[in-house]
């Protein structure tokens, strides 16, 4: 148990630093096992420094910065031990347009390096435009959900019509 945990930690940590710097276009981040000698009991501390800023506690980072940092961590775990499916429910909601594009860049990189299938729930037109395919969920009959496959143009009309 302990060997595997330490080995996994090293891999996740190096993936995390790389993905963070990639997503933020600079800066630096790393993980630390804390609180106890036994890695099986320890907690996970996150240290992140966006480009040009001082190292701070995570809680001082902004909403968007926290979301991007959390994504770097989730995908770092992914790359260490890929999962057959990933579903992200409006993780792009706190991001500005520039970071939405970076998020999509990362998603595209993940599809090139893993076999994971991704379902991305979003309201952002920029994210929709970068998907390989789109499903629309509608409630033409109130309270009853149905699923339709849509093309991007129709999806954008979706956004307006609702």
């Amino acid at each position, binding site marked *: 148990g302990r060997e595997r945990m330490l080995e996994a930690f090293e891999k996740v940590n190096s993936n995390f630093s790389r993905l963070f710097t990639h997503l933020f276009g600079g800066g630096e981040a790393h993980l630390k096992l804390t609180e106890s000698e036994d890695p099986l009991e320890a907690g996970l501390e996150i240290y992140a420094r966006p480009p040009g800023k001082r190292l701070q506690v995570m809680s001082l980072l902004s909403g968007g910065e926290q979301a991007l940092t959390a994504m770097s961590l989730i995908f770092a775990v992914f790359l260490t031990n890929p999962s057959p*499916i990933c579903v992200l429910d409006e993780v792009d909601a706190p991001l500005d347009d520039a970071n939405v594009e970076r998020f999509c860049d990362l998603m595209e990189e993940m599809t090139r390096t893993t076999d994971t299938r991704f379902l991305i729930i979003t309201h952002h037109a920029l994210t929709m435009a970068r998907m390989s395919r789109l499903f629309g969920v509608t409630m033409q009959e109130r*309270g009853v*959900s149905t699923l339709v496959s849509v093309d991007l143009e129709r999806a954008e009309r979706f956004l307006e019509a609702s």
Partner: protein
Amino acid sequence: MKFNRLRLSGFKSFVDPTDLIIEPGLTGVVGPNGCGKSNLLEALRWVMGENSFKNMRGTGMEDVIFAGTAGRPARNHAEVTLIIDNADRSAPAAYNDCETIEVSRKIEREQGSTYRINGREVRARDVQLLFADASTGAHSPALVRQGQIAQLISSKPINRRRILEEAA
């Protein structure tokens, strides 16, 4: 193991049988507020063995059964089936000779849930193990619920460790 399709019937707002095709790469899911997008993720987590009704945003597990609308009566049961392509023969031994694996969960009012793998009734534990071996499951960090992404950062270090265990 590749996830191919998710079939819902009577599950939350998906009262009519609905198929979500899951293909390689990036599939976007869009639609107005309240139309049922997050319910799809819940259907996936539920069939993989989610056993806490709180994590399904309800007050009891029966809240996943279609409760009716102004125009339709409530249902008495709900069912979700996940169809998995096992052509690469990477499933655990018990199921590895099958080309496809169908995992389904059904709930009836007052009767609780039953799980089936390829038609045979199994325990919740068997389903949870099947997915744990494939590095996924109802609590996988790769299934990020709405509003949850920032929680990962703000939760206590000991809770964050769970995500590391997933990687081990």
